[in-house]
């Protein structure tokens, strides 16, 4: 009778670390010493064991601005844009692969957007060129926001080779290849440099803000 328990215990001892997976941790350093909190996420790697249900986040239009101006979601999540001004706004994106146009809508109206594809998405208003925001769509739930001191930790990762990205809206994203072993912690530090000045954007028809009839 003892033998089956011994075999089970042995199997558990082998399987548990694998099920628990490995960890990637490190520090994100931003040029200039400070800046917005970075998002660290897995861009490529072994398939995750589970996938979370799609969730919804909010990006409002208030005081002729997007609030918040930066938002990160998982592929498959949706973002609700609620116009909280007393006048009309539009929401659109020309980002290839993730382009959309929610149209022009009045204050108090909310429109939802599904984001099935990972990537950085520029968000604008077609009638207020000063309104700019960014969405970061990460592939899945293996993502986290770095702490104020820059440290981060991605846990529960199946063993394998990963491509990990550290991202902010105002720094050049940095990618690192990291090998994860079961039950171990791999270290990956990131140093992000500031992006150049943001380009002036065009309206949703690809024209400068103005007339085209």
């Amino acid at each position, binding site marked *: 009778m003892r033998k089956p328990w011994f075999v089970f215990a042995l199997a558990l001892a082998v399987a548990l670390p694998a099920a628990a997976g490995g960890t990637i941790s490190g520090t994100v350093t931003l040029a200039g010493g400070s800046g917005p909190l970075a998002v660290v996420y897995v861009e490529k790697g072994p398939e995750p064991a589970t996938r979370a249900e799609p969730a919804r986040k909010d990006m409002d239009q208030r005081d002729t601005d997007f609030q918040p101006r930066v938002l990160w979601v998982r592929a498959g999540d949706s973002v609700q844009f609620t116009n909280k001004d007393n006048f*009309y706004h539009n929401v659109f994106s020309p980002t290839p692969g993730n382009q959309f146009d929610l149209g022009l809508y009045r204050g108090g109206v909310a429109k939802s957007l599904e984001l099935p594809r990972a990537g950085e998405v520029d968000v604008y208003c077609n009638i207020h060129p000063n309104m700019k925001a960014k969405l970061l769509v990460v592939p899945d739930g293996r993502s986290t926001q770095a702490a104020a001191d820059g440290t981060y930790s991605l846990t529960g990762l199946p063993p394998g080779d990963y491509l990990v990205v550290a991202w902010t809206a105002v720094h050049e994203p940095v990618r690192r290849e990291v090998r994860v072993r079961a039950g171990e912690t791999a270290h990956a530090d990131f140093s992000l440099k500031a992006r150049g000045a943001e380009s002036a954007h065009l309206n949703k028809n*690809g024209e400068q803000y103005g007339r085209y009839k």
Partner: protein
Amino acid sequence: MKTAAAALLAAALLAPQLRAEEQPVRAGAGGEGFGHLTLMDDVRLRFTGYVDAGFFAAQGDGTAYVRDAGKLLHPEYQGVVPWVFLGDPWGNPINSQGDSADLGLDRTNIPRFDPIHSGGHPSFIVNMVNLGMAASIGSSFFFETSVGFEPRQGTLGSSGDQFDVDLAYVEWVPFKTVDLHVFAGKFESTFGIEYRTRKAPDRFGVTPSLISRYTVGELTGLKVRGSFFDQHLTFNLAVSNGGTFTEKFAHFFNEVDFNGGKTLSGRVSVLLPLPFTAEIGASGEIGAEDEQRSDSTVQWLGGVDLRVSIGDATLKAELLRGHADGGGIDQAASLRVTGWYGELQYQLLPWLGLLGRVDRRKADLLAFPNLYLTDELRYTGGLRFDVSWNVIAKLEYAKLVEVTGPEIPDDLFTSSFIFKF
């Protein structure tokens, strides 16, 4: 019937609220409702407008042309025309609508209507006050008007102030899935690309090109505009009372037609399949010459254009040739013109833009008894400050070179401060 009408009206009024409950839009899906097919969505009525004020300083007496007194430089016109002028009366515009710093005196030394008439003295000016209204009816019809007001000095009992209804049209989008627009009324030009930015808030710099006087005039009639293959092929085709000319010393356009011959105009453009925006277009127009009554006296215009945008830089260029027969019972003006411009815009910072432009216009314009001989080359540099989305400041300096004929002191500094809503 009344009940049915009330139900239809209620349905129309409720439609916006119902649309707000639609399924989420899927990013990257494209299709119906994206970009150019969207008119004003739920908007029923919208007011727009801008105020454009500026300060300018012109060299010399503000005029950009001189009289060839005694036809010393052009004796070949002795006994042919009474008066010969050299230079370009509209070569030193101070604002977006192309008003010259000064038009000088006419041949009898009597002041002509001169909307600016600065005499070469630096001056502040309100260039334009514009009010616009746009309304939609359902998702297929769109109506827009635009009125420009220009406060100017009056003369001889005239208030001087000008106002111009520059747009008044209905736009119909007959199909949901085809980018086809039908316009009726007074609408934007079909020629070239400069008309898109003819208004001060839309123009990157302050002043128009030397050839804008032939291309940006609004048309009254019917127009069809369509885009196909994901906007890679676009056409504009119009039949109208007159052409797109706005030449002001010899009018080549009519608000209400003065003859039976209509003007056919159009443009075809191709957006090249490149990793950056590159658009090439060809435009043309032909019809009975305006400001005269004969249907067989013809004016025509042909041209090509280019627009390339790479990152924060945009290059625009246009080349045109034009002709007006002139003569006839009304002694209509005759014109032969070739001209071009190349303009480079660079958005150095989100709030700072740089402008460089070179343009040239060669023209013989006979508006009997005056003959204007022009070969003008102009270099323009400018700065643009986007203080906010609705406050813009622009500065510009233009150096004019008379390629043939005497050099005229007609360089110009001008500026524009715009508030739009």
